[in-house]
């Protein structure tokens, strides 16, 4: 189990780097799908089968299909590296490193070495998640759905104005 975790965690990180490093948009999108699927495997290893499958259905199966669809529709080719900001060019890597250290420190503080996984004891079945979502967190859930609806309507209105 631990071996599997390291394999898929490494795969997720490598694919995530590939998302940024690839020059062809389709390869970036495909790398992102690999990231999402590796994360699903990690969820699976934590015993959250439902979350794992939903992760694949929603992110890899629906949202990323739209990404790939748009890339194909625009027939986007290789991107040329932009030479506009020398400032961003030199400062990018140190900032990313600083951000990474900050996240690692936060995680380290939350879960010191040797502490057990709290997630393993949780019930992550469909029924338990349904109860949480529709009883305890029903207001945030509904507000989020309205937010998404507003975004969709906004996109439609903006797109209509163009033509």
């Amino acid at each position: 189990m631990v071996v599997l975790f390291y394999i898929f965690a490494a795969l997720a990180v490598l694919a995530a780097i590939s998302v940024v490093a690839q020059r062809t948009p389709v390869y970036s999108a495909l790398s992102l799908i690999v990231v999402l699927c590796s994360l699903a495997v990690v969820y699976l290893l934590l015993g959250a089968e439902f979350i794992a499958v939903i992760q694949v259905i929603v992110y890899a199966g629906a949202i990323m299909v739209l990404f790939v669809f748009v890339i194909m529709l625009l027939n986007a080719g290789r991107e040329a590296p932009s030479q506009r900001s020398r400032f961003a060019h030199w400062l990018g890597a140190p900032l990313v490193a600083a951000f990474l250290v900050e996240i690692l420190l936060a995680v380290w503080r939350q879960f010191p070495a040797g502490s057990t996984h709290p997630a393993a004891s949780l019930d992550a079945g469909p029924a338990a998640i349904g109860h949480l979502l529709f009883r305890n967190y029903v207001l945030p859930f509904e507000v989020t759905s309205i937010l998404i609806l507003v975004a969709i309507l906004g996109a439609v209105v903006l797109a209509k104005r163009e033509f």
Partner: protein
Amino acid sequence: MATFSDTGLLLLITLIKIAVVVVVMLTAIAYLTWLERKVVAHIQARWGPYRVGPHGLLQPVADGIKFILKEDIVPLEADKVIYWLAPFLGFTLAFLSIAVIPFGESFTIYGHTISFQITDLNVGLLFIFAVTSLGVYSIALAGWSSNSKYPLLGGLRSSAQMISYELSLGLAVVGVLMIAGTLSLRGIVNSQAGFWHVGGMNTFLPHWNIFVQPVGFLVYFMAAIAETNRVPFDLPEGESELVGGFHTEYSSMKFAMFFLSEYANMITVSCLATILFFGGWHGPVFGPYVLRVILPVFWFCVKLFCFLFFYIWMRGTLPRFRYDQLMAFGWKFLLPVGVLNILVTSFVVAWISSS
């Protein structure tokens, strides 16, 4: 689930199961193509394949040899990596979803219980949906990587179509899930054992979901045909408009892989229809132990065959949709009907469980 103490034995049995299922699937697909050509031929008052073997029964073998021996042509401007990846992805995903399909009950041999299923996931149904939802990449990427007009249009059409109909497909089965109360396919089949009782009276109607979820079944089946890109929803490969659609630039074995995965997907959605709405392997079971083990598998195959025959029948009968009709049908008819079905079912389920 098989209950073993020895992990090695479990692994061995699982490997044997996988081998058996893959071999049976490949044979079934081969003869499904033969059946399709025969049935469509008879619908059109022709004979169909007749030369290779009696009644053309060896035609699939000849086709297979032809696929392997043909020259493999790769377009010069194709994106080589993705061009290779797409057919293999489609093939792998099509066969992956078979892993959770229960074909029959279980049997006991030398004290070991072996079930007719490779693995029983407790989210089996969602697993199949996850795998099918990834299947669209195979078609979309095949269309894109060929770097050619018609495949690209076919790929675009199929991604739009599959996203649209996936929603209806998912919504259609929610009614069944609410009645069965589980996501495990074996659990769903087990919930359909016996007969319907109305007011304490035995109606002698099998306890299948089709009798309480007819609308759900119709929505499911129509969406499933669209998901598998079959007539009348075969716009991704509409040969009169797009030459051959997403696989125009594919040849030889890579084309055969798309072909195989299309038929494997047909079998999967038909299996799912049998399991969700027609009681899976349930049917009259009698006789000695061997017969009691084999009969459920037989009933499953009979129901499956009916669906596959229906698929072919439709191909011989219906014309293709126009693209705007396809989208309007999916979004303005199938989706609202699916949502309405969920609403009504949930009210009825809540009413029954409260009274």
